[in-house]
């Protein structure tokens, strides 16, 4: 996997001593266990956190090193959770989710000798590696699939918590749908404005039913555990749903059209493996279609729903995005 990297060295704002430490990791093996902090929603949300869990499990299987973990069940625990993990001198502490940014800022300063990897947001510090994804690119592709599968020319999007990150999914999806059919109607709903919006399947189901009532026949949910309710409602109504983050096609074969895969598992696995091998670097990794960091899922569960023509057009668009011929708007771009 190619890695696009902006190190501190390049930015040239760090102290020379720190830059030398941060830019060039010490190339020696570190067999200390790595640590990971899962976010609200839990490591079995069958979506974002579960992808991170899969990556950590893969590391554990291959290295036989047991990782340390903490599952946040309340927003106030994040900082203390990270601190407790850092105190045990792990090879790296992986903070899963954008909400770990502020706590990580504090804790990474308290433990300058510990390496931290932040997933889904950017934090510039000598001992922090940030991994962000170009979710809008993957969402563009599933938006195209939604538009091609829709018979009513109406498709839906259901987000979890209303934050810029989720708006990024929504915008990419809508642009992808309009790329196929300029007149398509895209309904957009957000579940809530607090973290409980990641874990409210009954409201997710209700939002899905409301979109179906307005004519939507494909619904994309980027809402963590809330999505489970969306997929259930779609299955009951016989409409298509699109999964997110993990490959969720297996949840309801037949009505799960596809999933927008975000390789959080790879990011976590890479962070743990590189920390062990001594090749871990600070700075920012941006994973998009080009790096296979995002994509769409095609497996035995949705094979029969995706026609050869759909597959060809989506793959063409993917190549065009990678080549820069199609630009997908990133609403979070600074």
């Amino acid at each position: 996997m190619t890695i696009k990297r902006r190190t501190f060295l390049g930015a040239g704002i760090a102290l020379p001593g720190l830059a030398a430490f941060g830019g060039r990791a010490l190339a020696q093996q570190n067999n200390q266990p790595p640590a990971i902090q899962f976010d609200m929603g839990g490591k079995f949300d069958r979506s974002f956190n579960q992808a991170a869990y899969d990556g950590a499990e893969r590391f554990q299987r291959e290295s036989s090193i047991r990782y340390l973990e903490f599952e946040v069940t309340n927003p106030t625990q994040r900082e203390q959770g990270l601190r407790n993990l850092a105190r045990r001198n792990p090879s790296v502490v992986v903070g899963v989710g954008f909400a770990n940014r502020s706590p990580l800022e504090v804790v990474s300063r308290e433990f300058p000798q510990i390496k931290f990897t932040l997933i889904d947001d950017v934090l510039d510090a000598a001992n922090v590696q940030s991994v962000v994804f170009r979710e809008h690119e993957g969402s563009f592709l599933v938006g195209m699939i939604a538009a091609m599968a829709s018979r009513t020319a109406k498709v839906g999007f259901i987000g979890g918590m209303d934050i810029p990150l989720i708006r990024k999914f929504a915008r990419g999806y809508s642009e992808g749908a309009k790329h196929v059919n300029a007149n398509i109607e895209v309904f957009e709903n957000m579940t809530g404005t607090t973290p409980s919006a990641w874990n409210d399947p009954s409201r997710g189901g209700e939002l899905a039913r409301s979109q179906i009532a307005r004519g939507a026949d494909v619904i994309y949910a980027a809402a963590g555990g809330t999505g489970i309710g969306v997929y259930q409602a779609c299955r009951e109504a016989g409409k298509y749903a699109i999964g997110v983050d993990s490959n969720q096609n297996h949840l309801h074969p037949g009505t799960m059209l596809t999933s927008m895969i975000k390789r959080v598992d790879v990011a976590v696995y890479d962070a743990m493996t590189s920390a062990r091998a001594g090749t871990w670097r600070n700075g920012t990794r941006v994973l998009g279609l080009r790096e296979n960091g995002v994509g769409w899922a095609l497996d035995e569960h949705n094979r029969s729903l995706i026609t050869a023509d759909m597959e060809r057009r989506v793959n063409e668009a993917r190549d065009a995005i990678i080549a820069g011929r199609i630009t997908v708007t990133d609403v979070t771009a600074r």
Partner: protein
Amino acid sequence: MDDTMATAMALLAATLRLGTPLILAALAGLFSERSGVVDIGLEGKMLAAAFAAAAAAAETGSAWVGLTAGISVSIAIAMVHGYACITHNGNQVVSGTALNILLVGLTSTLAQAWYRQGGQTPALPDGARFRPIALPLSDALVGVPIVGPLWSTLISGHNLLVYVAILAVPLTAFVIYRTRFGLRLRAVGENPYAVDTAGISVAAMRYQALIVGGALCGIAGAYLSTAQGAAFIREMSAGKGFLALAALIFGKWRPLPTLLACLLFAFADALQARLQSVSLPGVGVVPVQLIQALPYILTVLLLAGFVGKAIAPKAIGIPYTKEK
């Protein structure tokens, strides 16, 4: 016009679906509070019942076994609450809150220990859930104006527990106002000394009220995990127990006004799901944040301006002791 009608009916049908757990829990609270026991533990009982129902339904493949398990667990918890605050005169709010906190942790811990899916239970197949029931004629009437959408969308096509919740309201009103049990129940909540003087055990009355409340709360929990949803998910009650309690106070501890309060909350919730990102005539697209605040704004406005004073049962929250 037809379109407007269909939208309105879909909105009202969503109100019923969202209102069902609130109605059941609020009626549960009504029994308990009318007997003088503050029922802050509605949330915890509902959550525990949701877990028990989902687990039992997943194990046996039967929604009915699930419902029975949900009701039993909810009643058992109500009895623990009763033991603390009726038998031992403990503080009702403190013991209820303790149960709430305990049950949030206990349900997800047990779910994790048994199923290893991060505090969820396995997704239930259709046979192990309460499925929508199509009432007779719902297909035949679809095309008929006004009556068609009213019958087919609003009244038909809900699961059994929705109808149970609606029927529970007149039943509760009958029991509370028209039976001997109801009279004693109300008396125990207003003036337990008088009831005691008349030779009726205050403790027994309050325990009975808690059993009825526990059963209703158990149905509410089973609804969440085996009718509306298809699995137990950590903290899935999401504050509905507290909302039900608010509706009960809002409805001044009376069955019909409480029903209306529950439906109002549910309507606001259903409305916000449908108003998001819709362009309203003359207003344009309203920001999501404002729409999502709608149920709460509505509640504050109504509580502040239109409801008048809510007078609680006189003896509520006070443990009964003979010596005083």
